[in-house]
């Protein structure tokens, strides 16, 4: 029986994506886009209801 592997380091590697210095920023951007998509879908539903 083996023990737990170590946690993934939060500073593992740079995302190498223009405009982002950390993966946390990428995740926040993706989640923010999801929120925007939901808002747009809600507005779409209301406009065409």
């Amino acid at each position, binding site marked *: 029986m083996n*023990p737990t592997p170590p946690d*993934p380091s939060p500073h593992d590697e740079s*995302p*190498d*994506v223009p405009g982002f210095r950390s*993966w946390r920023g*990428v995740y926040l951007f993706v989640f923010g886009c999801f929120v925007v998509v939901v808002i747009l879908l809600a507005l779409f539903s209301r406009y065409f209801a």
Partner: protein
Amino acid sequence: MNTLDWIILLGTMLGIAAYGVWRTRNVDSLNTYLKGNQSTGWATIGISVMATQASAITFLSIPGQGFESGVGFVQNYFGLPLALIIVCAVFLPIYRRLGVYTAYEFLGRRFDAKTRLLSAVLFLVQRGLATGVTIYAPAIILSAVLGWRLDLTIICTGLLVIIYTVTGGSAAVNLTQRWQMAIIFGGMVTAFIVLLTKLPDGLGFSGAAHVAGAMGKLQAVDFSLNPDRRYTFWTGMLGGTFLMLSYFGTDQSQVQRYIGGAALREGRLGLMFNALLKIPMQFSILLLGALVFVFYQFEQPPVFFNQVEWHRHEQGANGAKFTALDAQFGAAFAEQKSAIKTWLTARTTHDATTETAARDAMLAAQKQVQELRSAAKAALLADDPRAKTKDSDYVFITFILDYLPHGAIGLLLAVMIAAALGSKAGELNALATTTTIDLWRHFRPLAAHDEARNVRVAKWFTAFWGFFAIGFALYASFAENLIEAINILGSIFYGVVLGIFLVAFFLKRVGGTAVFWAAVAAQLLVFILFFSLKISYLWYNLIGCAACAILSWILQWIMGSQSQLPKSPENA
């Protein structure tokens, strides 16, 4: 279908398969065969993840879902971005750091061999049976509508995917899925454009959207807390996150798609690509279905879209009843069409009273049409209790065959077949990898260093699972309710497997023996509840996962802390 359609269909499908075989004919490294090329970039990984999830039934059923119930089904995918972020932040770095071929190999290192074997066997049972359905479900619809022989459709598509998946393994799967997705996107965009040109003059996209919205088809987001509502924002966020986490994080058919690649960055960006695009993509397919609904408000549809089934009953002993229903439906459709035109005219008057009255008349006419469609299904059941009354899967294919120009028909059929091949290839690849790495190598540890032999064995297992899927799909044609049985089977096992993984990641003091016996007990509990309760089978995902996690923690607490045990080198 004419010659042009056949040329496009066979040309694209055989061309992609031949390209996959030719480009990967020299693959002899186990790593490349099981994980794909080392140089695979994020775009290929992202497309491969998308292609594995999108089966043929996605492109047959989802437009039908949009036609029948509107675009609200998109909320089912609301949990996907959050689940993929969790997979990127927690699951993927550990899989990459340990250099595993399968997700279950990680469990072997985190816990022990018996836990790894248990989860691998649970995956093989569930996915092995489901892969037959992947090829059977579209084949039954395409063969019914196009008059193709069902057994030949299953065997031909099955053999095609076996040839290139056996030859090039994961490298071939990645390569062919990229082109298959290109065909899928091209075909769906073509269908969208052609559909817009087929709408009545002057209606346009905006007018069509207003008609669909007024008739209740464009309610994309529903914040209602009413538990009777099937698709809401809350069910999508809660249930969706849970289901997507288990699918993307622990199902080898997905894990295998993103653990390869040049670096951790490529897998992460591939998953984020899906987190960004999946919801807009599913919404577009549902919107296409809603626009097909609008189209059929101006062009008379059949009362029942599975025309083969309908004509069989129409020519039977009670045929007069079905002919009468056809006539009633025609009259109701004409009334509805007239009411819609009156409402569209009333909208331009900007008189609220006139518009409301016209809208009420339109909705009343719509209700009458819906009642006749329900009556048609009831008549089918009364005539034959085994009749298949779900016709929404036939809506889009009927539209394609009746209204798309030749060439586009071949392209759209290529979309369906490409989706079937892409998802089945990913599944076969995952089944063969799990069988080779988690079972065969476990029982033949001395063979682990003979790379050529490992590749040969993986190829044999790929072929085995391919023929198993074909055999199962052929058998499924004699027992249709097996499809639902497979979905139930998946829900029974999925929860416990996810429970094992969540314990591995988040309950750090729990060891292998505790989680193994907790998983066995949780699986037994799920079996007992399944045979004694009458609840939706989807709940067993949650029950299995929660039972496994809670029992693991309790057992470990009883057995004592795991921290006294020696650490393995790779985890130290």
